C-alpha cells in the first residue's frame, strides 16, 4: 500500500485537513455570525408571524420562494455536471467533480429550507410528508408542492450518495494518516475501506449507477420546481417552456457557482497545481453554451407571449419589459447575456479571472430571473383591481444574506474535513499535473459525444 507521506499529491490535497490558518478561524467566525443573524431573523419571524416579511395580497410569494428556486438552481451545478462528465469519461473532470457535488448537497439543503421558512405555520411542515396519521389524511398528491417534497428529497438523497460514494477511499486515506479520535471518526466514515479489487469494482459500479440515475432526477427536480409556477394559471407562469427553461437556468447558474467555488478553492487552498486554467476554460465554454441557451429560452418565451397578445399576460410582459420591473429585467439581461457572452466567447478573456467575472454576473442575473418569475406575475393577475406591489423587508434580506454565508461556511468547513479534490481519482488519472493543451481536444470530443 503506497499511501505514505512521501506522496506529494496526497500531501497537497490532505494538507487543509491538518493545517488551519488564523484566517480560516476568522472567516468562520464572521460567517457563523451572519448565519446566526439569519437564525435570529427566522426566530423573529416565527415569533411575530410571517407578516414581518414583505409578502402581501396579492404578492403572496416573494424573496423566500425566489431564493428557493435560486438555490435549487445552484444545486444543479454539481451532481448533474459531474455525472455527465463521469459518463462521458472526461478526464479533466477529476479535480472538479467533488467541488461540484458538494455545491449540490449544500445548495439543496439551503434551498429546501426556504419553502419551510416561507410557510405561514412552518411547525406543520411535516404534513407534507406521507405518514400514517390518525386522521388518515395524506398529502394531496395533485399539488406540485407535494411533488416538490418528493423530488427534492429524492435528489438530496441521491446527491448525498453520489457525493459520499467516491469519498470512501479518501476517508480511508485520511484515516490512515491520522491518529486518535480523528482516526476513529474517519475510520467510521471509511466504512472499512481496504482498497481491495472487489471494493474498487463495487465502488465503480455504484458510481456508474448513481451517475446514470442522478441525471433524470436532477432534470426532474428543476422541472418540478418549475411546475410550482407553470401549473398555476397565473399570467406568464402558465407556460410549457418552464420545465426546460428552469433546467437550463439551473445548470447555467450552477456552473457559475461552480466556477466561483473552484476559483476560491484554488486561491485559498493553493490548489493551482490541480485546478488549472483549462478547467476554467472548459467550464467557461459550458457556461457560454448555457448563456446562449438561456437567451434562446427567454427570447422564445417573450416572443410567444408578445405575439399571443393575451391581455393579462401582456400586463406582466410590459411590467417587466418597460414598467416598474424593467430596471431589474434589463439588469438580468445584461448579467446573463450581455456580460458573459463576450467574456466567454473570446479565448483571450476566457481566463480564470474572466470566467469568475462572468460567473458573478450570471449569479446576479439568475437570481433576478427567479425574482422576475415569482413577483411580477403575482403583482399583475388578471383582475387589474387586485394589482399590487412587493417590497422586501429586512428579515427577508437578512435571511437571504445568511444563506449565502451559510453556503460559504459549509463549503469552508467541508474543505477542512474532506479533501475537496478527490485524491484517488487524481491518482487514477495518474497525472498530478494534467496536460494543458493536448487534453483539451479529447475533452471536446467527449463533450460532443455527450450530445443527445
Amino acid at each position, binding site marked *: 500500500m503506497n499511501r505514505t507521506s512521501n506522496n506529494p499529491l496526497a500531501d497537497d490535497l490532505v494538507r487543509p485537513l491538518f493545517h488551519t490558518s488564523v484566517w480560516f478561524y476568522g472567516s468562520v467566525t464572521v460567517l457563523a455570525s451572519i448565519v446566526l443573524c439569519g437564525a435570529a431573523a427566522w426566530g423573529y419571524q416565527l415569533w411575530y408571524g410571517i407578516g414581518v416579511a414583505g409578502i402581501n395580497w396579492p404578492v403572496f410569494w416573494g424573496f423566500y420562494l425566489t431564493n428557493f428556486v435560486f438555490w435549487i438552481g445552484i444545486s444543479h451545478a454539481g451532481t448533474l455536471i459531474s455525472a455527465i462528465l463521469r459518463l462521458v469519461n472526461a478526464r479533466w473532470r477529476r479535480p472538479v467533480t467533488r467541488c461540484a457535488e458538494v455545491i449540490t448537497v449544500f445548495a439543496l439543503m439551503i434551498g429546501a429550507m426556504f419553502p419551510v421558512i416561507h410557510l405561514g405555520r412552518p411547525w406543520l411542515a411535516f404534513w407534507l410528508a406521507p405518514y400514517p396519521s390518525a386522521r388518515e389524511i395524506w398529502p394531496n398528491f395533485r399539488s406540485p408542492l407535494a411533488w416538490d417534497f418528493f423530488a427534492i428529497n429524492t435528489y438530496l438523497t441521491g446527491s448525498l450518495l453520489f457525493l459520499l460514494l467516491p469519498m470512501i477511499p479518501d476517508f480511508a486515506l485520511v484515516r490512515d494518516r491520522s491518529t486518535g479520535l480523528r482516526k476513529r471518526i474517519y475510520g467510521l466514515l471509511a466504512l472499512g475501506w481496504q482498497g481491495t479489487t472487489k471494493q474498487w469494482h463495487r465502488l465503480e459500479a455504484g458510481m456508474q449507477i448513481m451517475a446514470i440515475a442522478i441525471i433524470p432526477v436532477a432534470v426532474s427536480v428543476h422541472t418540478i420546481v418549475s411546475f410550482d409556477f407553470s401549473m398555476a394559471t397565473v399570467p406568464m407562469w402558465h407556460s410549457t417552456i418552464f420545465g426546460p427553461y428552469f433546467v437550463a437556468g439551473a445548470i447555467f447558474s450552477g456552473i457559475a457557482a461552480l466556477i466561483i467555488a473552484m476559483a476560491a478553492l484554488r486561491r485559498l487552498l493553493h490548489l493551482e497545481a490541480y485546478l488549472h486554467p483549462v478547467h476554467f476554460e472548459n467550464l467557461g465554454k459550458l457556461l457560454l453554451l448555457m448563456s446562449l441557451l438561456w437567451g434562446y429560452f427567454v427570447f422564445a418565451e417573450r416572443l410567444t407571449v408578445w405575439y399571443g397578445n393575451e*391581455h393579462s399576460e401582456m*400586463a406582466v410582459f*410590459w*411590467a417587466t419589459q*418597460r*414598467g416598474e420591473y424593467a430596471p431589474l429585467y434589463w439588469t438580468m439581461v445584461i448579467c446573463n447575456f450581455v456580460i458573459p457572452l463576450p467574456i466567454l466567447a473570446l479565448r483571450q478573456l476566457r481566463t480564470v479571472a474572466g470566467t469568475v467575472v462572468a460567473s458573478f454576473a450570471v449569479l446576479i442575473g439568475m437570481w433576478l430571473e427567479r425574482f422576475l418569475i415569482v413577483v411580477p406575475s403575482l403583482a399583475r393577475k388578471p383582475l*387589474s*383591481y387586485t*394589482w*399590487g406591489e412587493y417590497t422586501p423587508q429586512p428579515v427577508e434580506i437578512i435571511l437571504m444574506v445568511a444563506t449565502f454565508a451559510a453556503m460559504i461556511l459549509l463549503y469552508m468547513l467541508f474543505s477542512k474535513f474532506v479533501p475537496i479534490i478527490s485524491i484517488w481519482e487524481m491518482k487514477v488519472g495518474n497525472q498530478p499535473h494534467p496536460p494543458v493543451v493536448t487534453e483539451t481536444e479529447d475533452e471536446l470530443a467527449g463533450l460532443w459525444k455527450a450530445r443527445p
Partner: protein
Amino acid sequence: MTPMDRRRFLKVTAITGTSAALASCGHPENQIIRFVPEEELTPGIAVWKPSVCPLCSAGCGVIARVMDGDAEVFRNGQPGVTRMGLARKLEGDPAHAVSQGRLCVRGQAALQVTYHPDRLTTPLKRTGERGSGAFQEVSWDEAIGELVSRIDALVGGGQAGAIAFLGRPRRGRRQALVAEFLRALGAPAPVSFALFDDGVARHANELSFGRYQLPTLDLARARYVMGFGADFLGTWNSPVAQNVAYGRMRQGQPGVRAKFVQVEPRVSQTGASADEWVAIRPGTEGIVALGLAHVIMREGLRPAAAAGRAGGLVDGWASGLPAFTPQEVEQRTGVKAARLERLAREFAAHGPSVAVIGGAALAHANGVVQALAVNALNALVGSVDAPGGIAFTPTEAPPARPARSLRDLLGASPQLLLLDDANPVFATPAAARVAEALRSIPFIASFGCFVDETSALADLILPDHSFLESWTESSPESGAMEAVSVTAPPAMRPLYATRAMPDVLLEVSRRLSRPLDPPLPWQTFEELLQAPPAAAPAAPTRPASAAPVGWADAQFDGDAATYPFHLLPYASQALLDGSLAHLPWLQELPDPMTTAMWSSWVEINPHTAGQLGIAQGDMVEVSSAHGAVRAPAVISPGIGPDAVAMPVGQGHETFTRYASGRGANPIRVLAPVEEPATGTLAWSATRVKLAKVSGPDGSLVLFAGATRERPDHHGRG
C-alpha cells in the same frame, strides 16, 4: 347606602367569594370578579332583538342578534366579568318599512359603537386645561350633583335663559323630553346641529309643497330618474330605502328598465350607477332643471298648469321660463343644448319620471332656488304624490323648523351648555370660530359616549348608553310610503356605568332646588315611552309662500384668479360627516370610488393634475382664503378640471384611537358662507387653489391596484 335587596346580596356574596378565592393567589391586580348573570340565556342560541340604527337620520329599524358571552362590565361602580346577552350582528328589520330587512354599510358597522375600546365608561370631570383631554372619573352622584348645582345657580340667579342645549338633529320623544325639560326650566329651545342637515331641502319643500320634510322617492315605480347632485344611493336622505327602491327600478319592473341620469359636477357614488352622467359647473343644477322645464313647456310635452304651486314659485314660470333656453343653459352650465333638449324629451316622455335634488347641490348660497327649480320640474311632469314620483311620508311628528341655530345659540353667550353628541368644532369652518365661542362658555356638560373635538371642551361628561343599551325610537320622515313608528327596548344590558341621557335629565329635574314648573311627570325615560303619546300635532301642511323667487346664481368665496378651483367636499360613504370615523370597520372600508382606506384625499382631474405636475399620491395643499389642508392626490376622471373634491370625515384632532390625527378635514378651510333663508352652511361654495407639496408620504392607502380594467402598456391605471 343602597338597600340590600336579594340581587345585590347575591352580587356581593359572589364578589366576596371570588375575591376570597383569588386573594390567596397573591396577585390582587389579577383578581377577576364574576357577577351573577342578570338574565337567563341559553348558551349558543341567538335571540333577535329590535332596535333603531342611530348613525344617521334615516331611522332604519334593525334587529340585533344577541347571544350570551362573557363581558367585562361595571356594576355598582365595580369592574368585573359577567355572562350576559351581547349583540353580535345587526341586520335590517324585515318588518320595518324603511330598512325592509336591509342595512347599509354604516348600519352594519354600528355594532362597534357599543364595543369601542375608547368608549367612555363612567362620568368624567375635567381636571386639566380645556381641550387638554385631562379628565378624572367621578361618581354619578357627584357628576349629577355638579350639574344640578350649576343649573341651580343659574336658575336662582334668574339666568335660566343662559342654559343652552346643543344636540344632533333628532326627533321623537327623547327630543320632546329635552324640549320639555328646557321649557320647564325657562331655558331656550334646544338647538340641533349637523353638517349635512338638509335644512335647505326641507325649507324648499315647505315652500313648494307645504311640507317641511325630505321627500320619499318612489324609485321602484319610476321609469326615468334625474338626480341633481343627490347622493341618494350613498349617504343622502334614506339610503337603504332608496337602494331597495333603486334595485327594483333597475330590474324589478318586468319588461321595463328605467333610465337614470345624474347631473352633478363630480361623479358621486350615486352618479356612478347612472346611465348617463351630465357634468356641469358647480351650483348650476337648478339651471339645468329650469332648462329642462323650459323645453318641456316650449314643446308642449306637458301642460304648464300641472306644475301648480311649485312651478308658480319660480319667477318666469308662467311665461315658459324665457331666460332658460337650451342655448342659455349651455352657456351657463356647460351642458350642450341638444343634449338638454334630448334629456327633456326623454324625461317628459318616459314617465313616471322623477327628479331628485339634495346634498351638495343644495350646499350653495342659492340652494333654495336650486331646490325650488327641481321641485317645479317634478310638479311639471306630475310626479308629486304620484306613483314613481316623490311623496311625503305621513309621519306623526314631522321635522320642525328649527327655532334657533348654532349661531343663535353661541351669539346669546350661554353660561351653561348641555351637549348631546353634536360635534360642531369638527364640522364647522375654522373661520366660524365655533371652538373659541364654546371655550368662552363657563360650563359645558356633555352626554356623548366618546371624547371628540367638542366634548373635549366639556367640564363634565355624563356618558350615555350606546343605542343597543338604550330605548330607541324612530319615526322616519322619509323612506316609506306609510307612517312608520318604532319604539324598541334595549337590546342588551349596559356594559358600563353609563346612563341614558333622558334618565339623567329626569334625575337632574328631581334634584333641582327649585322644582320644575310644571314638574316632569315621569320617573324614567321608559315610563315616558310607555305613556300614551301626546295627541298628534296638527296636520303638517302649512301655507306655502306665494311670492315667486327669482333665479340667483351660486356665489363662491374667493376670486377665481387666485383660487381657480371649486372645492367640493362630500359625505364619505363610510364616515359620513366624520361622526363615524371612530369605527375601525368603516375606517378600513375601501371607498367605493377610490378604494382608499384610513385616508383623506383630494380628487383632481387628470388634466389639472398634469398641468400642476401632480401625480397620484403626491401630497397637495388645498388653500382657501380661510386656511389650508394637506392631503394626498387621487387622479380621477370623474371630476371637472375646474374643481377638486375631498371627502369629509377624516381630520379629527381628538376622536378615539382610530380617528385621531388621521387625514385632513376640508370643512375647516371652508368659507363661512350661509344659505340666507335657512342659515345652513353652504359647504360647496368655497374656491381654493392647489399646490403640490411633496411626493407621496404613504398616507394614501388604496385597496385596489389599477383604476381601469385594461390599463395601458405602462401599467398606468
